[in-house]
């Protein structure tokens, strides 16, 4: 009985000791994991693979902070301790340096780029001729205009995003972690007065092994090859998301295909953008300026289209995936051709596309049209009418609408995919006469600063949200012009036109939400109560396609809810009725979409303002037709896929010289053999060494 209490005491003692004992693994003492990094990943299309690849167990290299292009000699030829990990400032992240590193990739294990908060003077990793192979211009249609022979749209493009690197490239932010790395370099790796640095040296190891190779056809085939494997490995996924579209007069969603006697004016804009590194696209001038203008125009048209409806319907279309060979617009055109959309191409009256409109020089806004389709007289007349409608819509606005004046093709735009299928009169609005004004097209630096979005100091987030910036005023002028022109083009009542005005407040709130701070009260009031927004602006990279609407990108969902809010009506349905509106006699889910939204920014103690909004706004899948048709080597449709990977990490540690490693290994092996030998000899002489009193032999077995 005395034993039991002492056992308990012992256990309690052990538990108490365990609580007070800390452990730290050896790995934590060696490796410093770099947390805020973004890798560059591998993307594949019908013919190529682009992006970066590391080896499966990571690439280790001795850190070398590059000071200038001439300093590249050290990692590429002079340095005694290859392979090197080159650390670049963003000013040195240029095509010539990256190409030199690519050609000498046996001595360079990888590249880390430090992304500053201040943008460089110009940087565009996109190609000079975006989407040149999937546009409308080819050898059979306007051969002089194909491949940017007439106008180079993105002359600053260095094409880095479309190169293939067989070493990893990671991006680092300008923060404490990067300072630690640079400090480690200064302490251990710095070359002083010509002396070579001695081991141990500071090294960086980057893991970003990509599973897919060669091209989309190969990786999609390997996805499907089941053979005898128990769990087949998926190696890549197609890019895609959802398009958002809405109409002023609702369509029954189960009536697909051609509609007799229906003519629709399409107003299009693009949603997405891309950058060199994965998943960090910001697209301020490239996409945000365009779709915000269109959203504001949709709001401006709401009341007038209800009071005096125009003759034709207006369809607002926001396309996702346009940066990758027009995924969204090619899918919508394909659906229209196959009769899987609520209208078809013969119902399309004309198309106005709002391109990059945020960086106007003065008051000029350019109207780009397609010269090849205008060789047809009837189309030419319709285009002229469209241009006149646009030019006469700027009463009281600081916008002068000008045609480029030279015979020039369309810039990269969704209209090109419509023209590929059918000759439609269309105009693309842009702030550039020929080459883009955007100095950071397709880059991480295309952010709020690129649109000159500046807020006065000392404003709270809420005050910044409400502050009407100059950029917002300029964009709202463009939105007014677009709205008026759409109304006229759709055959609306001329006397009502000058009452159509976009609201600069809405525009500035949208600019704030999409480019500065997404988690603001204006956005929060217009999204469902259970949807969470991050503080940082939404990501504009199109990402991997998913068949489920619930998995659409945050950006697409926000645009859908905003369009619903700006063009729809509030109803007094309850939450259950909002989910199942078909039970009510006047409501139908076939004709409208019903969204249950928060109504106000949630604060403690205020009344619950959640409400049900009814709007004719829908999402349609934006997945390239090449994947439905299984033509993975298609030359006409986008075939972009993103590779899968297992593990992405960057870590820093001190690395020892090869000689020391070999010595340690040698000593270990020697100890092993010595111990084997000693054990052998001891066991041979066991009876001599361990003599013991012999027990009387008793038969055992």
């Amino acid at each position, binding site marked *: 009985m005395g034993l039991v209490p002492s056992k308990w005491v012992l256990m309690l003692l052990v538990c108490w000791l365990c609580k007070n004992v800390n452990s730290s693994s050896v790995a934590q003492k060696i490796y410093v994991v770099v947390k805020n990094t973004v890798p560059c990943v591998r993307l594949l299309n019908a013919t190529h693979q682009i992006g970066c690849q590391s080896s*499966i167990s990571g690439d280790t290299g001795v850190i070398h902070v590059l000071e200038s292009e001439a300093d590249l000699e050290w990692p590429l030829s002079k340095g005694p301790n290859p392979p090197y990990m080159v650390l670049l400032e963003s000013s040195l992240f240029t095509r010539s340096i990256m190409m030199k590193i690519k050609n000498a990739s046996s001595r360079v294990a990888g590249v880390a780029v430090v992304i500053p908060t201040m943008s460089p003077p110009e940087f565009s990793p996109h190609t000079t001729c975006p989407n040149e192979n999937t546009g409308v211009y080819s050898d059979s249609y306007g051969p002089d205009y194909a491949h940017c022979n007439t106008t180079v749209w993105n002359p600053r493009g260095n094409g880095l995003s479309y190169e293939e690197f067989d070493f990893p490239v990671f991006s680092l932010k300008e923060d404490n972690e990067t300072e630690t790395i640079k400090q480690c370099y200064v302490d251990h790796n710095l070359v002083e007065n010509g002396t070579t640095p001695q081991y141990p040296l500071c090294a960086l190891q980057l893991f970003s*092994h990509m599973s897919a190779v060669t091209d989309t056809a190969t990786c999609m085939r390997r996805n499907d090859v089941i*053979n005898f494997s128990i769990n087949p490995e998926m190696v890549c996924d197609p890019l895609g998301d959802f398009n958002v579209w809405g109409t002023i007069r609702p369509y029954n969603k189960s009536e697909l295909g051609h509609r007799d006697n229906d003519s629709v004016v399409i107003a299009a804009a693009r949603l997405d953008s891309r950058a060199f590194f994965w998943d960090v696209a910001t697209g301020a001038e490239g996409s945000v300026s365009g779709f915000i203008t269109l959203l504001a125009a949709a709001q401006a048209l709401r009341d007038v289209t209800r009071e005096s409806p125009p003759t034709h319907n207006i369809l607002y279309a926001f396309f996702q995936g346009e940066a990758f060979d027009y995924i969204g617009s090619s899918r919508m055109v394909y659906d229209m051709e196959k009769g899987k959309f609520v209208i078809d191409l013969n119902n399309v009256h004309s198309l106005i596309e709002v391109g990059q409109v945020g960086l106007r020089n003065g008051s000029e806004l350019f109207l780009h049209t397609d010269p090849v389709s205008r060789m047809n007289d009837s189309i030419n007349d319709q285009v002229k009418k469209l241009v006149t409608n646009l030019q006469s819509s700027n009463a009281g606005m600081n916008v002068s609408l000008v045609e480029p004046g030279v015979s020039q093709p369309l810039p990269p735009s969704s209209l090109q995919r419509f023209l590929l299928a059918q000759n439609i009169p269309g105009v693309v609005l842009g702030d550039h006469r020929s080459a883009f004004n955007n100095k950071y097209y397709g880059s991480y630096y295309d952010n709020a600063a690129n649109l000159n979005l500046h807020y006065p100091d000392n404003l709270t987030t809420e005050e910044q949200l409400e502050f009407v910036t100059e950029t917002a005023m300029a964009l709202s002028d463009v939105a007014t012009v677009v709205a008026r022109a759409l109304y006229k083009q759709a055959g609306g009542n001329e006397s009502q036109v000058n009452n159509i005005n976009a609201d600069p407040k809405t525009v500035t709130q949208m600019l704030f939400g999409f480019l500065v701070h997404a988690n603001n009260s204006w956005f929060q009031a217009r999204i469902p109560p259970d949807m969470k927004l991050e503080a940082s602006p939404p990501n504009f990279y199109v990402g991997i396609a998913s068949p489920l609407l619930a998995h659409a990108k945050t950006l697409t969902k926000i645009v859908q809810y905003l369009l619903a809010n700006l063009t729809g009506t509030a109803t007094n349905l309850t939450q259950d009725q909002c989910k199942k509106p078909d039970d009510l006699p006047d409501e139908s889910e076939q004709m409208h979409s019903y969204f249950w939204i928060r109504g106000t920014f949630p604060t403690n103690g205020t009344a619950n303002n959640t409400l049900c909004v009814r709007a004719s706004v829908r999402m349609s899948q934006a997945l390239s037709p090449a994947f439905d048709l299984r033509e993975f080597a298609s030359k006409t449709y986008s075939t972009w896929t993103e590779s899968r990977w297992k593990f992405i990490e960057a870590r820093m540690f001190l690395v020892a010289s090869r000689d020391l490693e070999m010595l340690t290994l040698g000593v270990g092996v020697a100890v092993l053999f010595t111990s084997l030998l000693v054990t052998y000899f001891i066991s041979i002489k066991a009876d001599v060494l361990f003599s013991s009193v012999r027990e009387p032999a008793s038969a055992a077995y």
Partner: protein
Amino acid sequence: MNLERLPNNEKLGLCRKYYLGGFAFLPFLWLVNVVWFFKEAFLKPAYTEQLQIKTYVKQSGLGLLLWVAVLTTWITIFQHFRAEWGVVADYLSFTIPLGIP
């Protein structure tokens, strides 16, 4: 199993079983046959069944060499040309390495 304890006719029976079994696309049985019965066939003093055991071991050895040659050739060719053969190679492969062509 200790061959020392077996009577000679049982040894012969065992050797024959392994020899015949190897024809069912089982070259490892022939390898076992050669390694296990080598001492019996060539290093022990002669006994009646030893001649037959010797034949079996020799023929197992030949069969084994043939298999090794065929497999080595096929493996070398496949590993070298797998990337170039594209579709066919993917359908022949059991596991396809990730990240390399």
